[in-house]
């Protein structure tokens, strides 16, 4: 009698296992890439975005500006929009802050009278230059890189600012 390892039955069993492993790998590898692909694209979303003419931001004031995220899909709707706080110190000196609190990402509000940013969630407060004033935030507000070109204000962004990747 032929040993099982050399028999037709043994071969068929091995072939069955092998074909299924191959099939699982051919389907499984793209699935893993599909699900985990997003985080690999490190350059995702970082680009220069116009916020409008600098004249829209009077010196000494802090105003809310909005832009559409450069990386988007057609069905993002209103969530493609992003808000940021623009502080024009004077001339071409600006500070542009993310609205997201450095603590847990809630939207901070600007209070011109007390010159503070305040967070509604857990009570974080920041001074007008974005530095931490009080409360749980571990750092100041996230600040965008900016430039002024042809009378327009541009910021570099496109990413949800978090502690591991501040703007």
């Amino acid at each position, binding site marked *: 009698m032929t040993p099982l390892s050399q028999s037709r039955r043994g071969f068929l069993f091995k072939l069955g296992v092998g074909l299924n492993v191959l099939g699982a790998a051919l389907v499984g590898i793209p699935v893993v890439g599909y*699900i*985990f692909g*997003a*985080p690999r694209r490190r350059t*995702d*979303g970082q680009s220069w975005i116009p916020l409008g003419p600098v004249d829209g931001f009077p010196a000494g004031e802090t105003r*809310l500006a*909005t832009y559409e*995220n450069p*990386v*988007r*899909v*057609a*069905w*993002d*709707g*209103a*969530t*493609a*929009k*992003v*808000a940021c706080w623009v502080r024009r110190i004077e001339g071409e000196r600006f500070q542009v802050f993310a*609205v*997201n609190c450095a*603590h*847990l*990402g*809630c*939207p*901070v*509000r600007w*209070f011109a*009278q*007390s*010159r*503070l940013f*305040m*967070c*509604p*969630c*857990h*009570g974080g*407060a920041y*001074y007008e230059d974005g530095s931490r*004033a*009080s*409360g*749980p*935030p*571990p750092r100041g507000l996230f600040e965008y890189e900016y430039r002024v070109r042809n009378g327009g204000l541009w910021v570099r962004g*496109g*990413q*949800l600012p*978090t*502690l*591991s*990747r501040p703007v």
Partner: protein
Amino acid sequence: MSGNGFAPVRSTLRWLEERAGLGGAVAPVLDHPVPRSTASWWYVFGSATLALFVVQIATGICLALVYVPAADGAYESLLYLNFQAPFGWFLRGVHFWGSNAMVAIMTLHMIQVFLWGAHKYPRELTWIVGVFLFLCTLGMAFTGQILRWDQDAYWGLGIGASIASRAPGVGDTLVHLLLGGPIIAGRTLSRFFAVHVFVVPGVLIGMIGLHLWLVLRIGINEWPMPGRVVSRATYRRRYEEEVHKDGVSFFPYAARKDMVACGIVVLAVVLCAVVFGPFGPHGVPDPTLIDTAPKPDFYFLALYALFALLPPWTETVVILVGPLVAIAALFLVPFLAGTGEKSWKRRPVAVLSVLVIVLIVATLAGLGVTVPWSPKMEAWTAAATPVRYVKGRTPLELQGALVLQNKQCRTCHSLGGEGGRRGPALDGIATRQTRDQLIRQVLQGGGNMPAYGKNLSPAEVNALVAFMATLRP
């Protein structure tokens, strides 16, 4: 009952039984003997949770017939469900109140089985699967809250992403995995829809099957008696004896209380849905509308409160390690105390642990409702200075009252009970601080107060402190 009218029914059933054999498979499950002591009202929470899960599936499927899982259409489809789809408001209401009830009753079930010692030998695996079910249900609660795709959902995701970003080394990767892209947007919602509708329910159904199989295979936990110690050598034999001597068949002796309890919780959910209606959606999910104070649903209020109250230097460690330790502790319970006394009357540490945990969670959740740490952003224009604090004051002091109002001190400090509670109430501040201490505190801040040195002129500080020096009981 044996009238001839039933003959066709009976013959149909016989026809089915001959082919499917379902009666033969189900009958032993219904008839299996259980200790008489378990036919108790305390043993109904598991069945009630299962009944709620069935309701969630039924209403969830109905909602998915209409709901649009796309960021630009989800909100409108929810409004359509609320106001136009026939009974859409009702189904959303049942799904919402059902989810609340499911988390609540499941928690009761967990506390009951723990106090009754049901996690001990030989039911360790039943407990572990139960912990998985608990975590999956909380996962359903969180992802379901996201599908409501309103301002709370949007900023709730922001909070989730901020927590994930704190993980050392992999924070950025986790954030992208969570959001499915660089920002909270269309791809994020699709992702959460798939998790809420396919992934977690699939896992839940499988785990529930395993949980029930284990209950059937090992037998339901008998009513624990003080002094009847669990030992690996004798427990199973003694259990078999008890079931044999004083057992009743599960159906209908124990099942009827389960049935009543299931009926009551489902009716309570229906009543809540009819009386209170569906929950939300609240503000439109437009990230540029920032005048919003996001808040989680009740099951996460305790966590939300914890994030506000932790000392900042402990935060990252507690946020990341705390949940892992808590989950690990739940999984380890049957291994730390797998034998010995079962009755809560002889397990003071177990009873105290439950009490302490319940008190902590309830206190934090209560604080999460009142949010004493949140600034009252409207107080400076909405809350008037109490008349008794302006009567008979000098012009300088009145000017100070204006400064206090206009510089938004009341965002954090209350006067006459109105205003924020982040800082101390200013009623009676003059009895606690001298003029010099007040000036120092206003200018330099400290103790969680921002410094106002740059934002106030010397004249304003002078007036403000003059006013505060009059605030006495």
